[in-house]
C-alpha cells in the first residue's frame, strides 16, 4: 500500500581522484563533509535537513573512529535522530540503504545521509593487512595468510576444484571491467588489458594474480535518501529503493560455511528480489562488488544469474563487457575505477547514475531496474539492493 513514505535516493556525489588519490586537500572527515554537501545540494537540500546519519569506515581506529556516526555528526555540525554505524565490511552501505529505507517508511527519519570516506592511498595504509591476533583471529593471523586476498584465493581454488573454473575465466572479469573503465573518464586505470596480461601478472596468493585484485585508492561518496512524497519537491530524478536484504556468515576463513558458494549473497539477494517483485530478466544493469575477480563469479552464481558452477561460462567471451549481453560493473568497478577499502558506496552511486541516465559513453540504454550487491570482509557479508528509476507505483 503506497503512503508516500516509500524510500527513494535523491542525491549522490563522489570525490574526484587523480591517480587514485584525492584531487583536493582535506582530511578524511573533510572529504566526507564535502561529498555530503554536494549530494544534498544536487537534491536542493542542505545539511540542516538531515535527521538520519549512516556511515562505516576504517578511519580513526583506535580513537574517534570507534564511534563513527558520533564523530562524523560532530564534524558535520548536526544532531541526527536516526543513526546507523553498521559495519559489515564493504557491503555496509547496501545495508545502510536497507536500514534507512525502514526508518523512512516508519517515519523515524525524513532525510537520511549515507557517507563514506577513505584516504588509505594517500596514507599508504590498508588496515586489514595485519589483523590483530586476538579472539578468533588468534587461530588464523599467526599462520601468515595474506589478508584478505588469501581467503578469496582459498575460495577460488575450491571453486576450481568443484567445477573446473579456470584462471582464464577469472581474467575475463578483470578484462571486461577494464573495458567499462575505459568508458568512464573518472576511472583510475584505463590502459588496455588482455586476458594474457591478467594471467601473466604476478601471483599474489595462488591462484589469484595481481590483476585479479582490486585497486587501492582513496575515495569518498555520499547518498541522500528521503520519502517519495518529499522527493516530488526536489531537484533530481528520484530512484526508488524497491527491495533489500543482508546477511553475514563468518569472519574467520575457517568458519566460512561453504568455500565455493556465497550463502550470504544467496539469502540477501533472494529476499531483495522477492521484496521488489522482480526476476533476473527484469534487471537491466548489475553492480557487484569486485574486490577480487572470484568475488564477482561467486556472487553471480549465488544471486541466481546462473547456476552454481556456471559462473565461468557466464562471464566467458566478454559477455559482461560493453556491448555484451549482461551489463556488469559499468563504472569500471573496484578492479579498475577505484577501491577505497569499502567499495559498496560506489556500487550504489553508479547504479543510481545509470538509472538517471547520466553515464555518457557507458550508459546502458533504457536502464530502468538495477541490482546492487555488496560483499564485505572475507566473503563474510552480503547485502543486496534493488533500485528502479523514478517514483514507482
Amino acid at each position, binding site marked *: 500500500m503506497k503512503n508516500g513514505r516509500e524510500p527513494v535516493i535523491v542525491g549522490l556525489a563522489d570525490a574526484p581522484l587523480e591517480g587514485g588519490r584525492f584531487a583536493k586537500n582535506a582530511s578524511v572527515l573533510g572529504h566526507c563533509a564535502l561529498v555530503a554537501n554536494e549530494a544534498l545540494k544536487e537534491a536542493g537540500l542542505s545539511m540542516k535537513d538531515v535527521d538520519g546519519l549512516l556511515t562505516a569506515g576504517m578511519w580513526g581506529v583506535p580513537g574517534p573512529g570507534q564511534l563513527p556516526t558520533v564523530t562524523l555528526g560532530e564534524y558535520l555540525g548536526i544532531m541526527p535522530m536516526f543513526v546507523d554505524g553498521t559495519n559489515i565490511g564493504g557491503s555496509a552501505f547496501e545495508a545502510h540503504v536497507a536500514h534507512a529505507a525502514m526508518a523512512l517508511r516508519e517515519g523515524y527519519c525524513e532525510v537520511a545521509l549515507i557517507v563514506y570516506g577513505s584516504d588509505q592511498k594517500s596514507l599508504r595504509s590498508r588496515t586489514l593487512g595485519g589483523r590483530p591476533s586476538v579472539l578468533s583471529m588468534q587461530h588464523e593471523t599467526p599462520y601468515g595468510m*595474506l589478508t584478505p586476498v588469501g581467503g578469496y584465493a582459498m575460495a577460488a581454488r575450491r571453486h576450481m576444484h568443484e567445477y573446473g573454473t579456470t584462471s582464464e575465466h577469472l581474467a575475463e572479469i578483470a578484462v571486461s571491467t577494464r573495458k567499462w573503465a575505459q568508458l568512464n573518464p573518472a576511472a583510475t586505470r584505463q590502459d588496455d588489458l588482455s586476458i594474457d596480461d591478467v594471467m601473466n601478472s604476478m*601471483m599474489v*596468493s*595462488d591462484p589469484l594474480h595481481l590483476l585479479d585484485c582490486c585497486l587501492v585508492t582513496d575515495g569518498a561518496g555520499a547518498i541522500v535518501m528521503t520519502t517519495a512524497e518529499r522527493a516530488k519537491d526536489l531537484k533530481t530524478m528520484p530512484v526508488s529503493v524497491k527491495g533489500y536484504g543482508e546477511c553475514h556468515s563468518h569472519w574467520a576463513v575457517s568458519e566460512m560455511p561453504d568455500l565455493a558458494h556465497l550463502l550470504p549473497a544467496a539469502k540477501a539477494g533472494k529476499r531483495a528480489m522477492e521484496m521488489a517483485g522482480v526476476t533476473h530478466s527484469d534487471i537491466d544493469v548489475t553492480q557487484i562488488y569486485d574486490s577480487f575477480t572470484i568475488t564477482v563469479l561467486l556472487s553471480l552464481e549465488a544471486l541466481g544469474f546462473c547456476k552454481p558452477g556456471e559462473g565461468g561460462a557466464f562471464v566467458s567471451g566478454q559477455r559482461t563487457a560493453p556491448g555484451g549481453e549482461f551489463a556488469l560493473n559499468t563504472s569500471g568497478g573496484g578492479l579498475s575505477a577505484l577501491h577505497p577499502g569499502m567499495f559498496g558506496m560506489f556500487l550504489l552511486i553508479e547504479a543510481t547514475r545509470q538509472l538517471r541516465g547520466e553515464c555518457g559513453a557507458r550508459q546502458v540504454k533504457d536502464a530502468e531496474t538495477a541490482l546492487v550487491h555488496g560483499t564485505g570482509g572475507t566473503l563474510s557479508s552480503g547485502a543486496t539492493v534493488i533500485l528502479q528509476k523514478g517514483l514507482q507505483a
Partner: protein
Amino acid sequence: MSYDKPLPVIDHDSAPYWDAAREGRLDIPLCDDCGQHHFYPRAVCPHCYSDKLKFDTVSGRGTVHTYTVSSRPPGPAFADDVPYVVALIDLEEGPRMMSRIETDDPEAVRIGSEVEVVFVKATDEVTFPHFKLAK
C-alpha cells in the same frame, strides 16, 4: 632468536588448546550434549548452543579442504618462509581449522591430500599445530 611473527593472544576459551599444543596434543572442544567437536574453542557450542563442553584429544589426522600458496608475505617476519602453504584442514573429527602445511614442495599439495599434525615450537609459551602430508 626472538620470534617476530604474530603470536596468539591467548584467552580463557583458548588456553587449554594452546596448553595442549605446547605438550604435543591437539585438544579441541567436544560437546557433551550434541556429541560434536568444534573449532575454534568457544564457551558455548556453535552447533547446539550448550555450555557442557570439554576438551578432547583428537587424532591429528585430516584432509586439505583448500589452500593457497603465499608468494607475498603479509609482513617482513614471513619473508623468509615464502613460498609457503596456508590451508584449511578438515579434521577427521569434523571441524575445520586454518594452519600451515610443512612441505618443501608446495606443488605436491592438493585438495583432498591427507595430512597429519606436527607441532612447531615458536616460543616457550606457544607451539603451533602445523600439518604435513601423510605418507
